[in-house]
């Protein structure tokens, strides 16, 4: 896997660990960004990990671009030797699939869609070879997801499903992006799932909505009082399908400060995961459910 370096103007170093997405590429990027953070190179102002790449923002008045490039390249070797193991957390997130709000929105933007005669769920189910929408939802909620990037807008997680490539859901983005997406929509584009943290423009297919806020600038949500953004790269998410009464109840709990998502600390070992994906996921889910 060749790493590609490029400068984004005079203030950014862009590092592509792989052209294509994989957990190997994500872990390579994560170990390099950790290595860069630990090295405390003077002049680096921000480190932004992405799915299979990352970006370092720097002040060229403090460190010359070529010197920074040399220092970051020197970390590449050490990162390759580091073990693909992280301490992280697994979170259960309730989802009302096929909800009325994303349905209303997708009907409003139907002329921007590849298949105006079906819904986003029906389209995604069909092109991913699932017999029914319910089968598709079962696959979407059936295996956990890795948060491989936080960004686009405030606190939005990009998520990569922890299944073998044959089972990975792939869908195109809308032909033209929508100007509106309900807050907390569960979306999917390319191979990535996401949760829209705020209402706004978007191009991902829309599958459902969660009652659980993940960005709160007022920091009044009980689990966002320490920091307004919920997700961090490396978090593991397991979706739990819920029905409308359960959704309404969760919204009420959020409003009165009682909602608390199940969160457990776990360690993740990419090598062990790769040997037995479904078995490893079952163990992760066991931790989540307190087994």
């Amino acid at each position: 896997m060749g790493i590609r370096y490029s400068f984004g103007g005079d203030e950014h170093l862009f590092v592509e660990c792989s052209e294509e997405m994989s957990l190997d590429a994500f872990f390579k990027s994560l170990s390099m960004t950790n290595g860069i953070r630990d090295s405390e190179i003077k002049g680096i102002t921000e480190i932004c990990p992405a799915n299979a790449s990352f970006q370092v923002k720097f002040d060229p008045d403090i460190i010359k671009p070529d010197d920074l490039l040399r220092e970051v390249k020197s970390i590449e070797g050490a990162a390759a030797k580091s073990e693909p193991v992280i301490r992280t957390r697994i979170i259960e997130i309730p989802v009302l699939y096929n909800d009325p709000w994303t349905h209303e929105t997708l009907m409003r933007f139907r002329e921007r869609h590849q298949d105006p005669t079906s819904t986003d769920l029906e389209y995604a189910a069909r092109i991913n070879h699932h017999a029914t929408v319910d089968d598709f939802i079962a696959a979407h909620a059936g295996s956990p997801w890795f948060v491989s990037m936080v960004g686009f807008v405030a606190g939005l997680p990009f998520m990569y499903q922890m299944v073998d490539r044959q089972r990975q859901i792939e869908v195109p983005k809308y032909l033209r992006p929508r100007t509106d997406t309900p807050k907390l929509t569960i979306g999917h584009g390319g191979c990535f799932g996401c949760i829209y943290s705020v209402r706004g423009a978007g191009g991902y297919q829309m599958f459902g909505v969660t009652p659980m806020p993940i960005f709160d600038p007022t920091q009044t949500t009980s689990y966002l009082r320490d920091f307004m953004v919920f997700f961090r790269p490396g978090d593991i998410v397991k979706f739990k399908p819920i029905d409308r009464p359960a959704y309404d109840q969760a919204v009420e709990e959020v409003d009165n400060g009682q909602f608390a998502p199940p969160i457990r600390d776990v360690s993740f070992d990419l090598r062990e995961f790769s040997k037995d994906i479904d078995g490893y996921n079952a163990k992760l889910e066991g931790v989540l459910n307190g087994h």
Partner: protein
Amino acid sequence: MAIKVVHHGLATTVQDLGRPGYFHLGIPVGGAMDRYAMRAANLLVGNDEGAAGLEAVFMGPQLEFTADALVAVTGADMPVKIDGVDQPGWTALKVKAGQKLSFDFLNSGARICIAVSGGIDVPVALGSRSTYPIGALGGDKGRPIQAGDELPVGEGSLASEGRGVDPGLRRVPGKLAELRVLPGLYWHRLTEAAKETFFADEWKVANEADRMGYRFKGGRKLDLVEREQPFGAGSDPSNIVDSCYPYGSIQVPGGTEPIILHRDAVSGGGYFMVGTVIAADMDLIGQLQPHTPTRFVKVDMDQALAARADEAVRLERLRATLKS
């Protein structure tokens, strides 16, 4: 003291020099689009360069002051009035309690910066008072100002009325804007022909030009080198596996209309980028009106750093003339 907003103008927001440190969470740096102009306005009224002021685009607000203050308006050429009487731009102006600051039609440029002695004293959010409307963060209630708002103002001094910025130290866009670009990022995805036409063609600023990004039209479509799309990127040849977007980077969805990402940009996404506008030219972008003819000028890293040094010298000269 406070400022009463009589009319909000167009998308007028509280801005300072921005909120670095949270881009990895999708929260952009924000801050004034034309930072040089915001620094100048603050220095004129005796503030720290990083104090919060107002940024208005195309149309100025109408503001009433509840106490005496010093104000300065910099950036675009938009005639300034106090109680209807013309005032010079780039100059420290005395405003008395009860007087109104207003503006005439825009002559050139796109954005004005309004500084008031003491600075706009809205709460600091993640280290900055800048408004990030999409995230409902910062500024006054996380949104552009509206008629009826009362903006709190900090303690300032009323010294040095009448000082101005030397015309040689003001930058206004010419008839043809030139933006210097360092090719890179996914530059290799363009065909050799597209690499040439990108810099040869005259582009025009499109109507979709705001704090998040500036779109350009009018140049030839940029063809991409054929390839099998990498897993996870999406089917369009201009798609990539979603990655970080540097500030100033130029993405070209579908190869047709380049978009330069600016202060409130999304932090990442799935479109390829051909290169990045150098830091020295970022302020200028915010002063471009729709339809402004624009050329992208190819530079290398040494030229980018030289331009950066020139900008630093200009800023030092500004400070030297206003801090004495």
